[in-house]
């Protein structure tokens, strides 16, 4: 790998009106997307939202029922996969069961006519990258789940593809290994300038690794924007609820202030309004980690009844309920947390800039 680091510019991808039907079901629905060369794009979405299907179409394994895919200005909608020069990690790995680990990894090199010695060397290097030195002679069936996934990863990165498609490539790895792999992938990305489309269920992963994140739902893109923006100003309630946790409190917007059902009145800053918020039914959104515990009657605090305290390592999750029955969650650092009993009345305070207000249409 190391020596092969000539910077090939990553592929530039344009997707227009992409659609894929399975029978009646539209797995991907009128999806358009521009991925500039060298971008790291994360695809996020609930199970069954069409992420894998998009990747399969980008790779050329599924033919779209409508729409077009252009790679580097060339229409590729029907181009066969091997001509696209992509590296791919499949969700189910798809290792070749009859080839040893090293032969699996060397396969793409073989296809590119690399010499035997060269193949072995580079495959061994890729195995090192995924921390599988010495596993070369095993057969895939003799590996653990995480080891298989890493072989699939090594196979995708062993050559210099211009486009790297990864379908949850790290899902079977423990945190430490996953972080190491994230770093390796980032390194590869920045060294080689390869374009990456990355499907993950780990939001932290998406937010830390990707230049932009696209949120899919039912085959349609909900939002596509830079990580920070996505997290801090999700475009709609779905994105808001999907990325990270979000408390959503029903409210009434009267053009300048917000009435909560339990009676509090809040005056969020101008910046808190997402899009146009017409007067009437609205939603107040606030992230659990922006809430702090206070006395129930502290000024500006929302009073709530604590229902559950869930310990989660660094943080502790508090589940409470407002007077109108809305559940509200707070994530507070475990360290220094006063002893709280379930059923206790608590107050939840927040900074004004933690507030987001959505109009009815954003639901």
């Amino acid at each position: 790998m190391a020596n092969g680091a000539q910077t090939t510019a990553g592929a530039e991808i344009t997707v227009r009106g992409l659609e894929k039907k399975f029978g009646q079901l539209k797995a991907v629905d009128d999806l358009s997307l521009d991925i500039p060369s060298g971008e790291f794009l994360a695809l996020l979405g609930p199970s069954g939202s069409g992420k894998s299907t998009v990747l399969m179409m980008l790779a050329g394994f599924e033919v779209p029922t409508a729409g077009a895919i252009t790679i580097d200005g060339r229409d590729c909608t029907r181009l066969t996969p091997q001509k696209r020069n992509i590296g791919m990690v499949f969700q189910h790995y798809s290792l070749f069961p009859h080839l040893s680990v090293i032969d699996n990894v060397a396969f793409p090199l073989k296809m590119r006519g690399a010499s035997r010695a060269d193949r072995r060397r580079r495959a061994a290097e890729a195995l090192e990258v995924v921390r599988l030195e010495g596993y070369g002679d095993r057969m895939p069936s003799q590996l653990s789940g995480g080891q298989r996934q890493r072989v699939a990863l090594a196979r995708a990165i062993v050559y210099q593809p211009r486009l790297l498609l990864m379908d949850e490539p790290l899902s079977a790895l423990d945190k430490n290994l996953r972080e190491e792999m994230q770093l390796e992938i980032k390194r590869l990305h920045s060294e080689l300038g390869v374009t990456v489309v990355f499907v993950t269920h780990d939001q932290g992963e998406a937010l830390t690794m990707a230049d932009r994140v696209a949120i899919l739902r039912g085959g349609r893109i909900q939002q596509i924007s830079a990580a920070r923006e996505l997290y801090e100003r999700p475009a709609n309630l779905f994105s808001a609820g999907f990325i990270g946790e979000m408390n959503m409190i029903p409210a009434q917007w009267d053009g300048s202030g917000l009435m909560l059902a339990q009676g509090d009145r809040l005056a969020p800053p101008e910046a808190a309004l997402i899009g146009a918020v017409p007067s009437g039914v609205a939603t107040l959104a606030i992230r659990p980690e922006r809430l702090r515990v206070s006395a129930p009657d502290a000024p500006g605090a929302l009073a709530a009844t604590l229902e559950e305290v869930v310990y989660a390592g660094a943080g502790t999750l508090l589940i409470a309920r407002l007077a109108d029955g809305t559940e509200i969650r707070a994530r507070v650092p475990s360290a220094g947390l006063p002893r709280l009993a379930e059923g206790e009345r608590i107050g939840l305070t927040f900074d004004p800039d933690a507030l987001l207000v959505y109009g009815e249409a954003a639901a």
Partner: protein
Amino acid sequence: MSGKLTPGRLMLMAYVYLVLIFVLAPIVVILPMAFSEPDYLTFPPEGFTFKWFGAFFGNARWMDASVFSLKIAVLTSIVTVVVGTMATYALMRGAGRLGTLFQGLLIAPIVVPHIALAVALYLFFRQTGLSGTVTGYVMAHAIIAMPFVVFTVAAALSSVDATLEDAAMSCGASRFDAFRLVTLPLILPNVLSGALFAFILSFDEPVISFFLAGIRDKTLPRMMFDNIEQNLTPVIPAIAVLLTGVSILVLVCAAVLRRMAQSRSIPAEEG
């Protein structure tokens, strides 16, 4: 399913041995007859002689026929396996809506009695000048062997994960390479079975070969057929002994080679 000796497995093996006895019984009866003195088949054999092997090797007509048949059988098995595997593959990996037609075409050649096929082909080949040519033989044999190859290959192909080929293509393999390097190794046992079937069907096919035969050349099965219909001499079991011997030898060599190859590679894992 592992090699553990459970009662179930014991019963299975007992049953299998019974089946093997059934399979081998006729062979056990036939092979010794090759060494029997009289010029007709006797069981138990009388006397002991190698003269029937001499009769086979010493007779130019037997030898010519053997060489000729071997040639045709080898060609047939190559042609059939290549064409049949390709067709099955194309069909099962979804190249079009020809499924039912394909099935029909496959099934028909086995159903039509060989003699009828022989007559039909004879008429046709005489018009086209293919009769008596190696091409003619191979085509005819390929037709009858084709279903055996296709069904055998299909049985294996149906259980090979199609996404493995996608994976290969994502690595830059062409569809053909993906097939050659990934799918083929996985279905190889059945492809080889198919090749064997084709070889045997061609090598042991008296009726069609005979009709297509030119005036001069003869295939081995036809020689044997004549022999059996007219004067069944121990040359026939002698040929069986020879073929059986050769095939066992090949099998043993293959096993030894594989053992050697294995011992050189991975430190042996079980399973």
